[in-house]
């Protein structure tokens, strides 16, 4: 196992290196006046843009810029934003907690609902319950996140006034940002503010979790049906085990393997930022940060963030693979 992990980590190095080269070149091929234009806004005259571009060192040969960037990166320095001057690492620590909270909320919604629905559908394959679940999951995959997000906000926020439509916590509560995890900060602040933080999490979690929910439902259904047809399940039933015991011990334990893999992959993807959901709900996470940075041609921020996302994704993948071995003792990596 140790050798497997080391090998995977070594493989990640050329992947990240290649990604950094492609990103670096790609971002600089974007048309426009670069970050100087974003800084200057309507005041961007050709002379001022050229002056700032030179001051930022963006007029130097690309390989010089790249070597300098990689050199800093190897020393743990992700660089600073061209626009606001803040260190990427500093802002990341402020904004990543929001994305983590949203990912957790979405996954709780998707897993908590998707797996029971998948099991329910698998128990009555091709029946009317299965049909309804199939329609629901197809709808979940088809509906654009921003449409669902606006619709949820309109109904539950604007019309019913049940739930907040933006942000992580009511600004009027003045919850001090200690950890930047809104729920933890709300708990620390007391006064049951945590209820407000949880209420803010509901609609974005549903919007973001709907597609994973549909995926989990379909995977669970297919996996449970597959396993249910295995000989050992039939044998278990023939031995007179109760249906609940057959389900828990023999079907679900084995059906979990592909489901767990997909959950891991989806978690990794969501941690890389839920761009649309964060935008629709004004959620202060890394997704909305990436968007604004791309619009501003803030190269350093974009390339550093995508490298961080790639690292997170590779790490989550690795954890999933390791977890796979624990879930299925028959699998051993070498």
């Amino acid at each position, binding site marked *: 196992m140790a050798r497997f992990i080391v090998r995977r980590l070594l493989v990640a190095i050329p992947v990240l290196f290649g990604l950094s080269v492609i990103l670096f070149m790609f971002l600089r091929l*974007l*048309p*426009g*006046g670069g970050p100087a*234009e*974003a*800084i*200057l*806004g*309507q*005041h*961007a*005259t*050709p*002379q001022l*843009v050229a002056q*700032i571009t030179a*001051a*930022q060192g963006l007029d130097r040969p690309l390989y010089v810029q790249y070597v300098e960037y990689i050199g800093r990166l190897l020393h743990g320095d992700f660089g600073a934003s061209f*626009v*606001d*001057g*803040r*260190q990427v690492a500093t*802002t990341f620590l*402020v*904004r990543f907690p*929001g994305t983590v909270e949203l990912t957790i909320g979405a996954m709780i919604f998707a897993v908590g*609902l998707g797996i029971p629905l998948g099991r329910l559908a698998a128990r009555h394959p091709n029946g009317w319950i299965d049909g309804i679940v199939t329609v*629901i999951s197809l*709808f979940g995959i088809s509906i654009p996140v921003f*449409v*669902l997000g*606006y*619709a*949820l*906000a*309109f*109904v539950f926020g*604007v*019309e019913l*006034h049940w739930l*907040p*439509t*933006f*942000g992580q916590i*009511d*600004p*009027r509560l*003045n919850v001090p*940002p200690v950890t930047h995890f809104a729920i933890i900060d709300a708990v620390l602040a007391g006064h049951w503010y945590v209820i407000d933080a949880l209420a803010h999490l509901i609609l974005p979690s549903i919007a973001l979790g709907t597609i994973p929910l549909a995926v989990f439902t379909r995977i669970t259904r297919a996996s449970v049906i597959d396993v249910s047809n295995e000989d050992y399940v039939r044998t278990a039933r023939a031995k007179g085990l109760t249906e609940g015991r057959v389900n828990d011990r023999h079907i679900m334990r084995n059906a979990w393997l592909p489901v767990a893999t997909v959950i891991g992959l989806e978690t990794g993807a969501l941690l890389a930022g839920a761009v649309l959901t964060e*935008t*629709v709900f*004004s959620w*202060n996470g890394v997704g*909305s*940060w990436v968007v*604004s940075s791309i*619009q501003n*041609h803030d190269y350093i921020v974009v390339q550093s963030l995508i490298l961080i996302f790639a690292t997170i994704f590779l790490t989550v993948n690795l954890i999933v693979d390791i977890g796979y071995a624990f879930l299925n003792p028959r699998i051993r990596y070498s």
Partner: protein
Amino acid sequence: MMRTRVGSLIAVAAIVVAAWSGSATPTPAAPSAAPSAAPSAAASAAPSAAAASPASTATEGGNMVYALNGDMVLADPALVSDGNSLLVAEQVVENLVGLQPGTISTVIPVLAASLPTVSADGLTYTFPLRTGIKFHDGTDFNADAVVYNYNRWQNFPKGDLQDNAYYYGAVFGGFGSASNVASVTAPDEQTVVITLKTPQSNFLLASTLAVFGIQSPAALKAGNADTTPISSNKYAQGQLPQGQDMVGTGPFIFKEWVPGDHVTIVKNPNYWDTPNAAHLDQVTFKPIGDSTATLQALQSGGVDAAFSISPLDVKTAQSSGLSIIDRGSSCNQLNLDMNQSVGGKATIYANKNVRLAISEAVNKQSYADAFYAGLGTVPTGFMPPATLGFKAETLPAFDSTKAKADLAASGVTGSALNIDLYYPSNVVRPYMPDPKGIAQAIAGDLQAVGFTVTLKTEDWHGGYVSDATNGKLALYLFGWTCDWAGADNFLYTAWFGYQGGKPNPQFGWANAQANTDMTQALQAPTADAANTLWGQVQDLLAQDLPVVPLVNSQPPGALTSKVHGYVGASNGTEYLNSVWLSQ
């Protein structure tokens, strides 16, 4: 699960119904654009901001949540040029002079006890200062503090500090020895004398910009804010402990900034101008970058006010019980730019008759009606009417028949009439709420008189701005929102001032006389002399028609019914000390 799905379906249906019913709502009456009668400076020594509602009726306290369309960029007002940062700064930091709330060009004394006396040669401005004022950190405001700030701006080191201090460079022509400021001195504790190298007619009006707000020298020194590059300048980044960033004398104190999430300012309990002290205990600025999300936040009551909403949402907002901020006289203008020289070659727009034909072909009133929700008006000149130095001109009226005749008279025929019209994508500007829609409408009008128009687009930040300003586009939409409401800001800074001795490549309009007049107007010792010259420039523009002025507009913002005392201004200089919340 089922409930969620049913909810979604209901939501989608509800949106469709809401959109349908919204479209049937009568168009609100356009706020009147008052003609420019504002003097260059008000004689009164009125304090910084007057409440719209009598203070006796105001409710004290409360935390107003105010949506901005983006985050602040930096917490040092001297280093910003974006509207969000400036709006926050306007509440916290005060200048020697400011604008009468609700106006865009009426200058009043703020930290100065009265408007300055100006020497006959227009070079020396002597400001008497108010006494007994303290910065938020408890240190004294006095003449030395003013001198410190002016010297700080002038001596920003080359690099990102100078690059970000756009306004100082733009107003005074540069930094260090290149600056038009010869000296700033304090003959005594309560007097500041600013001496210029050459007269500068925009000096007083430009001095109202929040970037010229006076900050506590002690705080600036403690924060190493004067020479530290922005990437390690904690003061500019707003990352110092509470009370050490953006330290001014205003009615609000800067409390906290969580990047991307919120900025908080709190009431200054010791504000020097007691009658105009803030009613609110706190204002929380919340960046909401998406216009639909902003509207929903207002409708749900999550925010109390929004600095900007989409003009497309105005009717829906009003039908939801929200009120649209009355921003009075416009301070922006959308133009159809006709570049006469692209890539060193004359375009068909170098032909005066073509420009005239295009000016007559476009139905500006229809654009104002269709795209600005009653908040747009057809220009009567080359800048908004309330701008200082504005002169109304007789611009070509919409007349397709005449346009056809002028096009025929131009001699331009055949494939030369196949033209490209550029509009920006992925952007909404205050003067351009629907770039594609406006471009389509213009294209239709131009086709009607004989042009064959191909619509083309580029991403605003992905090439449009740089291509337009570098002179690579021939016919395109572009506009300007005033920094200060002076003729120089529109005519010289934004558009027609020569660059490096040559016509601005954005327009390719060679008119040495206009450039000379503008340069002299900037250096005129008196407002009257400057206005005469600006008038001449506008006459030349009306003769040559290098652009077609399309629309002046009020950028819409919205308030919930809880918000009172809000005084809007179309240049975005809005003070929140007069605002109060009903329970």
